[in-house]
C-alpha cells in the first residue's frame, strides 16, 4: 500500500473538479494524512484469495419491463435549474 504522504492534493482536487483555497489544501492534506495513516492498518490483513464485496446483498440482472413510462414534465424537471431558456438548461458557452 502506498504511503499516506503520496497524496498530491492539487492533482486530486483537479480530478474532483473542486477548487480549493491554499488554506483548505494545507488543512485537508494534514487531516487526511492522519486518516490515511489509520487506513494503512489494512495492509496488515491477509486478503489472499478473498473475493471483494461491493454490496452486502448483490442482486444481478435487474431489468425493468420495456414499457414506456411517463417521466417528469419538462417544467418540473427544469424548476430547479439555475438558468433555463426554451425548455433547455443554459450554461456558459462550451464550444467556440
Amino acid at each position: 500500500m502506498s504511503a499516506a504522504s503520496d497524496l498530491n492534493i492539487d492533482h486530486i482536487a483537479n480530478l474532483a473538479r473542486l477548487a480549493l483555497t491554499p488554506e483548505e489544501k494545507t488543512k485537508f492534506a494534514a487531516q487526511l494524512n492522519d486518516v490515511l495513516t489509520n487506513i494503512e492498518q489494512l495492509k496488515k490483513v491477509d486478503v489472499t484469495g478473498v473475493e471483494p464485496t461491493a454490496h452486502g446483498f448483490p442482486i444481478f440482472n435487474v431489468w425493468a419491463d420495456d414499457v414506456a413510462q411517463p417521466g417528469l414534465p419538462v417544467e418540473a424537471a427544469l424548476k430547479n435549474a439555475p438558468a433555463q431558456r426554451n425548455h433547455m438548461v443554459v450554461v456558459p458557452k462550451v464550444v467556440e
Partner: protein
Amino acid sequence: MSSELIYQPISQLADQLASKKVSSVELTQAIVARTKAVDPKVKAFNSFDEADALAQARASDERRAAGQARGPLDGIPIGIKDVISVEGQPLTASSKMLANFVSPYDATVTKKLKNAGAVCWGRLNLDEFAMGSSTENSAFHTTSNPYDLDRVPGGSSGGSAAAVAAGEAIATLGSDTGGSIRQPAALCNVVGLKPTYGLVSRYGLIAFASSLDQIGPFTRTVEDAAITLGAIAGYDPLDSTSFKTEIPDYLAELSKRKGPWKIGIPKEYFGEGLDPEVAAAVEKAVSYYEKLGCEIKNVSLPHTEYGVGVYYIIATAECSSNLGRYDGVRYGHRSKDAKDITELYFKSRAEGFGPEVKRRIILGTYVLSSGYYDAYYLRAQKVRTLIRQDFLNAYKEVDVILTPTAPTPAFKKGEKASNPLAMYLSDIYTIGVNLAGLPGLSIPCGFSKSGLPIGLQLIGQPFKEAELLSIAHTYDRAHDWATRHPNL
C-alpha cells in the same frame, strides 16, 4: 393536554385517534406548538410547513370520520430528514449546494408514509449530505442535544433524533450509512433502527454511499419502530438494489416471539475507548437478558479494528462518485462568476460544498485514482468481505449480537470538530453493520451520572427484523427509559 400528547408513542396515539378522544388536527397542532416553543433552542428543523401539515391532518380526520382510516400511522406527525424527498417541499441535504432546491417528487418511503395516512412534518437537520457524526457539519445550524444544549445530538441524523427526543415529532425518518440512525438515537434516548440493506427503498434518498445507505425510523419505543418499519419496507422496482422478500407484520410478530435467545457479546467491542459508564449500562442490559434465561455467549468479530478504515475508503469512494452530479448545471448552486464551463464546475462545487464534504470527496477521489485503486479500494472491498464473514460466522452460534451503540455519551459541540479521525472513531461500533448490510437497532439503556442518555445496540441477521425487534422489545417494555424526557 398537549404535553401529554407530544411524548406518547404511536401505539397509544393510534388508539386515541381510533376512539376519537383526540383528532389528528389536535395532535398536529400540539406538535407544531411544541416545535415553535422549543426548536429555537434545539434547532432540529431546517424548515417546516405548518399549513401543509394541518391540511394533511384534516384529511386524516375526514378519512376517519368517513370510516376509511388507514391503520396505526393515520394522522401521526412524522418528521423527515432533509435528505429524503417530499414533493413540493425543500430538499437541502443541509448544504448550500441545495439551499433552494424543491423536490419535484416523493421518495418511495414518503409515498408509503402518505399512503399509510401519516402527516409528513418538517425537514430535519443533518450533517451536510449525511457526512458526519454530530450534526455540526450542517451548512445552516448545529442541532443541540435536548438533554444538554451544549452537546451534540450525534449525527448525521441529529435533527431526526433530537426532534423525537424533544417532542417535536412522534417519530421521524433518518438515513444510516455508518451509524447515522443508531448513534444519534443512542445520544438522544430514542429508538433508532437501521434495516437490512435492500429492505427499504432508497429511491428519493439523496445518495451518499450507495452500497451502505439505508433509510430507517426513529421512535420512542420498539413497538413504534415495528409499526413504522412495516409501513416503509418492501420491494420497489424504482430501486435496483431493493430486495424481494416477504414483509411480515412486524408489530404482530413482537408478541409471538418470546425467546429465550442466544445473545452474542463480541469482545472486540468492549475494549479501549469505551466509556466506563456506557460499559456499565450495557453490561446491566446483558444481565437483564441473562436473568430472562437467554444464553449469553462470547463471540469474536476479529476484523472489527479495520472497520473504520474500510468504511472511510468505501464511503468516500462512493461519495466522490455520487457527488459528481453537483456541477452547477442542471440544479443546485451555480457560481455567478465562472467564465467558462470548466470554471463553472470548479467554482460551483467549491462554493456549494462545506469542509467535511470537500474532505471526503478528496479522500474518495484519491483512493479511486489511477495507481491507488488496488491498494485502497479493492483491498477495502476484500476486507469488507472478511468483516461480513465474521458476522455470518457469529450467527452460526447466536441469534443476535449485543454491543454498545456509541463509545461515549454525547460529546460537547466543537470537541471533535477539528479532528476528523476522532470524529470518525465515534462510529466505530456501528460501521460494521453497514459494511455487512445487516439490520441494527439502538435502544435506550440508561443515563450517565450527568444525565446523558446511553444506547444499546442489537445487531440482527439479514432480513430477520422481526426477530431483532422482538428481542429489543422484550428489553424495552421492561424498562422505563422511554418515559424520561429532557428539561426544555
